[in-house]
């Protein structure tokens, strides 16, 4: 008995289950890769393998060559496996071996590329096209491979946009049927006829026989049109070519496998396959004279590729068509609902929608739900449909619950239509060693594989949290972005980390891909990092890698990249590269003891770098533009901090001497001059008097106001305290501001905002109070004198309150003017 189904069709699944019970087969054969046969046994009632999951077949030596077979709770194939295992029946996949299939499509692609590069030599290069074929990225292969298995379904969902040109029947069998039945939309036709059909007891097999007959007729029609040459006139596209090559092979393989089962003495075979294939697998064809010989010959000598298979967790989101999955369905959540609901699904669905709306703080009363049910019924009968479909229900929700406003619907769309559901795979299913190791560790660290994104706050002083941080950092090195590190809001706390956690199914593949690097997480991430470090040519990137190794606590790579760094540091002449490396190295040396890193090696490297920086810094500061100066300012500040806390203090001394010279040098960029003055003043290398002299010099009338402004940016960034606590500095700034012309002031305003904006509110208020107290008397005195001018004040007030500190200065300034 052949059961033609639609992949991920809940109606198909329900009918199939009933039909199987009625038919009582002695073996179940399913359209799927035979390599995965050993994995079928995990599909059992009560198993920890919980859909949505996918069968993954991947090339052992190159995991990027892979193919998925996703299954949901309501996939007919899944029900069939479940049934077979429940009854203890043998169950097999009978499709063309995926090892042949992958090898064939690879071969085809290579041929295509060869052909393209050939034409490229002759004519215009079609570069874009070629790229598409050349780089089979995982994401590309993913829907591709699937669309091969399921093109009959894919075309279902694609029907709408191809109204004027009728696609070949084999791409759209249901569409052809639907048009014949007078439905415009094949989706609606199938939904109404098959998926939402309430099966009467006793004749579950009937629908499958009917479907088989319908498909037979369709295939005959297609054959006819092919013979008439309809198809030959059209230029075959790439996909068609692959179809033409592989599709017949698949059916041949299925037939061969069925013959095999018969040979083994099975009498009642249940064959579960895509409806389109059903007519090719009938007994007449299988037992046709000479057919077996032809079939066997066709399968001989196909190319092969070594494959591994495993179960991986999947999500409803990736089952949906919107994710780019070729055989996807528009609303997995809806299908799941239909499948799991006894009786009419409308009311429970509306209740669910209402509860989601309430969770979003939107009005959704029971009375409205009742109205929605009635509207759904009315719409269904008006449209003369046997059952309400998803669109009728959605329209009722829109009219009754949402007052016609479609926005809230999009809020609940994902939860309702797709359903955030992640499948589960028990740990004892053979995966790659790396996957298993990662799962073991995640369990140990209590990090759950969840599709929902959530935030994990880590306190690195706790051993468990530290381990978690290492774990997530290691995964990131392997391009498995399970955790995404968030920028810390509180700058000062270095022992806090925030991670955004979200497990996506493609990460399973990324992990399998990464297994070329090693068998455990530490080994793999360490090897991958070292590989990148050896290959990289830039010292800066090397330091970044070193930092990564440090964050992931990978001893081997820390040591290795340290060694590389010391070799490279001699060759590097770019001071800014060296400067960005210095803080990283200093922190390695500080924690070096904990991590048993060769302390001497680090020390000598730090010393080497520090000396090189100090010697070359001055030359590197010549003629910088503003942006370069700004990044240099940051680097100087970082290096100063690093060397200040470094155990050997001779370097910081040398640095301060250098900075002292720089602060007074007029040709140095004002940003850097301001910053160095600040650093020196903070370190008590300049006393108040000296610092003020430099400040006055930089803010004197002779310097352009732009120069002065930038000097202040350098000096005042992160430095509110000096304005609050030091009266003399405040006055210098104050009088400089007052000396500015209005236009000049407006020009500088953005810059001043940038400097003072990040000050804390308390600091701003402090400065403002100080400013007001200084000038109150002045303002009052002038008040009487010039009322007219004061009218301007509220406007300025608004502008200046953004600045906080300068409010009062400008008031007096304006009044005076």
């Amino acid at each position: 008995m052949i059961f033609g189904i639609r992949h991920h069709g809940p109606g198909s699944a329900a009918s199939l289950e009933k039909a199987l019970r009625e038919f009582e087969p002695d073996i179940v054969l399913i359209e799927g890769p035979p390599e995965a046969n050993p994995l079928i046994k995990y599909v059992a009632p009560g198993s920890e393998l919980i859909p949505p999951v996918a069968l993954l077949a991947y090339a052992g030596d190159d995991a990027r060559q892979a193919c998925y077979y996703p299954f949901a709770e309501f996939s007919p194939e899944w029900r069939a496996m479940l049934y077979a295992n429940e009854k203890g029946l043998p169950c097999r996949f009978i499709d063309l071996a995926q090892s042949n299939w992958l090898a064939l499509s690879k071969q085809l692609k290579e041929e295509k590329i060869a052909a393209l590069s050939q034409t490229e030599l002759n004519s215009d290069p079609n570069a874009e096209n070629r790229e598409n074929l050349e780089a089979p990225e995982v994401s590309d292969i993913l829907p591709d491979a699937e669309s091969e298995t399921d093109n009959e379904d894919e075309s279902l969902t694609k029907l709408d946009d191809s109204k004027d040109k009728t696609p070949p029947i084999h791409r759209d069998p249901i569409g052809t049927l639907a048009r014949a039945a007078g439905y415009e939309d094949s989706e609606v036709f199938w939904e109404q006829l098959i998926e939402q059909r309430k099966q009467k007891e006793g004749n579950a097999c009937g629908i499958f026989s009917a479907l088989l007959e319908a498909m037979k007729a369709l295939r005959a029609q297609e054959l006819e049109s092919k013979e008439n040459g309809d198809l030959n006139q059209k230029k075959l596209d790439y996909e068609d070519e692959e179809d033409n090559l592989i599709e017949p092979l698949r059916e041949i393989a299925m037939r061969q496998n069925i013959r095999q089962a018969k040979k083994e003495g099975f009498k009642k075979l249940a064959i579960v396959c895509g409806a389109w294939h059903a007519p090719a697998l009938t007994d007449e064809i299988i037992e046709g004279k000479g057919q077996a010989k032809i079939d066997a010959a066709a399968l001989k000598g196909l190319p092969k590729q070594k494959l591994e298979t495993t179960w991986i967790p999947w999500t409803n989101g990736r089952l949906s068509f919107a994710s780019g999955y070729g055989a996807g369905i528009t609303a997995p959540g809806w299908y799941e609902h239909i499948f799991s609901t006894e009786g009419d699904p409308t009311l429970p669905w509306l209740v669910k929608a209402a509860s989601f709306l309430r969770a979003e703080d939107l009005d959704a009363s029971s009375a409205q739900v009742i109205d929605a049910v009635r509207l759904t019924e009315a719409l269904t009968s008006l449209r003369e449909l046997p059952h309400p479909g998803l669109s009728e229900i959605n329209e009722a929700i829109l009219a009754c619950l949402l007052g016609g406003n479609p926005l809230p619907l999009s809020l609940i769309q994902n939860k309702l239509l797709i359903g955030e559901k992640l499948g589960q795979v028990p740990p004892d299913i053979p995966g790659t060693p790396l996957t298993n190791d990662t799962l073991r560790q995640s369990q140990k660290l209590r990090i759950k594989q969840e599709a929902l994104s959530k935030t994990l706050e880590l306190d690195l002083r706790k051993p468990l949290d530290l381990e978690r941080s290492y774990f997530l950092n290691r995964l990131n090195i392997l391009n498995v972005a399970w955790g995404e590190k968030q920028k810390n809001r509180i700058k000062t706390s270095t022992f806090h980390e925030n991670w955004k956690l979200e497990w996506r199914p493609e990460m399973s593949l990324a992990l399998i891909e990464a297994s070329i690097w090693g068998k455990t997480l530490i080994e793999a991430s360490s090897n991958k990092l070292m590989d990148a470090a050896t290959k990289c040519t830039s010292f800066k990137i090397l330091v970044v890698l070193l930092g990564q190794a440090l964050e992931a606590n990978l001893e081997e790579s820390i040591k290795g990249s340290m060694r590389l760094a010391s070799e490279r540091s001699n060759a590097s002449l770019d001071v800014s590269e060296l400067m960005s490396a210095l803080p990283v190295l200093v922190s390695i040396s500080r924690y070096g003891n904990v991590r048993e890193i060769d302390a001497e090696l680090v020390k000598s490297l730090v010393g080497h770098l520090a000396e090189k920086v100090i010697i070359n810094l001055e030359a590197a500061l010549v003629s910088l533009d503003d942006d370069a100066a700004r990044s240099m300012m940051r680097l100087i500040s970082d290096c100063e901090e690093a060397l200040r806390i470094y155990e050997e203090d001779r370097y910081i001394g040398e640095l301060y001497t250098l900075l002292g010279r720089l602060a007074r040098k007029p040709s140095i960029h004002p940003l850097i001059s301001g910053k160095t003055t600040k650093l020196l003043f903070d370190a008590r290398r300049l006393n108040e008097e000296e610092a003020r002299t430099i400040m006055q010099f930089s803010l004197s009338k002779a310097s352009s106001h732009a120069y002065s402004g930038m000097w202040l940016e350098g000096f005042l960034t992160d430095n509110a305290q000096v304005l609050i606590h030091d009266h003399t500095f405040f006055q210098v700034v104050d009088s400089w501001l007052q000396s500015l012309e209005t236009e000049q002031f407006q020009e500088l305003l953005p810059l001043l905002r940038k400097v003072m904006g990040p000050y804390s509110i308390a600091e701003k208020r402090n400065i403002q109070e100080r400013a007001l107290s200084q000038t109150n008397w002045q303002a009052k005195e002038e008040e009487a004198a010039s009322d007219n001018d004061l009218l301007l004040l509220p406007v300025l007030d608004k502008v200046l309150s953004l600045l906080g500190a300068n409010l009062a200065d400008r008031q007096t300034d304006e009044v005076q003017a």
Partner: protein
Amino acid sequence: MDAQLLREHAENQYKEELDALSSVDKKQRPPRWKMSPWAVMTYLMGGKLENGFEISPKYIGNRRTIEIAVATLTTDRALLLLGLPGTAKTWVAEHLAAAISGDSTLLIQGTAGTSEESVRYGWNYARLLAEGPSMQALVPSPMMEAMKAGKTARIEELTRIPADVQDTLITILSEKTLPVPELGTEIQAVKGFNVIATANDRDKGVNDLSSALKRRFNTVILPVPATIEEEIDIVTRRTEAMGKALELPAEKPAIEEITRVVQIFRELRSGATLDGKTKLRSPSGSMSTAEAISVMNNGLALSGHFGDGALKAEDLAAGIVGAVVKDPVQDSLVLKEYLETVVKERDDWKDFYRSIRHLL
């Protein structure tokens, strides 16, 4: 008294179509409906009957939207048609009432001055004083009439009615009864009674509906026409129909003129040229399809009475300026900008450019 009417009610104007429809309509009708929901759909969306009779489409646009509206009326829920001005809300409501009850006259016009009496009932004071309170002294509102007769009542511009008056609708809509405490009695609605309200939620001077009232309506939003072809179709049909009714002496407008007017309206409404290449400022008015229709009619009248009968750019220019410039300062700037950046560049639009330019 057989002066010709300026505008016929829908049920009279399209009497032939309604009769033809109900003669072939064999499907089940809800209580007191003049035709089945299927026939109502055909009446609104147009179609060919089995006997070859052609029904003209009244609403051009998404069929599903109208299906929701009709399905709502088959339940006892009231229907609220929401949308920007000129999206055919009133038009749809009138035709729905005409098709369902054969009577589109039970109408309450919502204004800021609409009182409770016009929704419930008033009194004939002479009789009230002479005879005391009685049913005979009571002056029923259109709503009350509809309840008694099991017909469709219409409320135009529901959101313009003051909130306290809106509240009187709640009991009517939920309990389908209208109490008359003065007489110690009540009017109970007969099967077939329903309410179609139209409202505009984004205009000036509207009162938001309370959520209690909102919940008693199924809301259907009528969108602006989705494509330029759809809108051209609407304008063409309506201009023709109105030209006939107003007996304008001009020729039928050429499709090119309609296309250009609709294009101007769509571009200014959406704030971008049709090819999506140029960003435009939108004027303060709503630039609705209804206004485009009146621009066409205006142009027809001008060309018929003062021109040579053939519709030309200068006949349309005044109408376009009038539709765009609602705020004399801002909107004329918008129009000028549009003229200079878009219209001027289009080679075959020179006549438009000249005649509009001339008026500004």
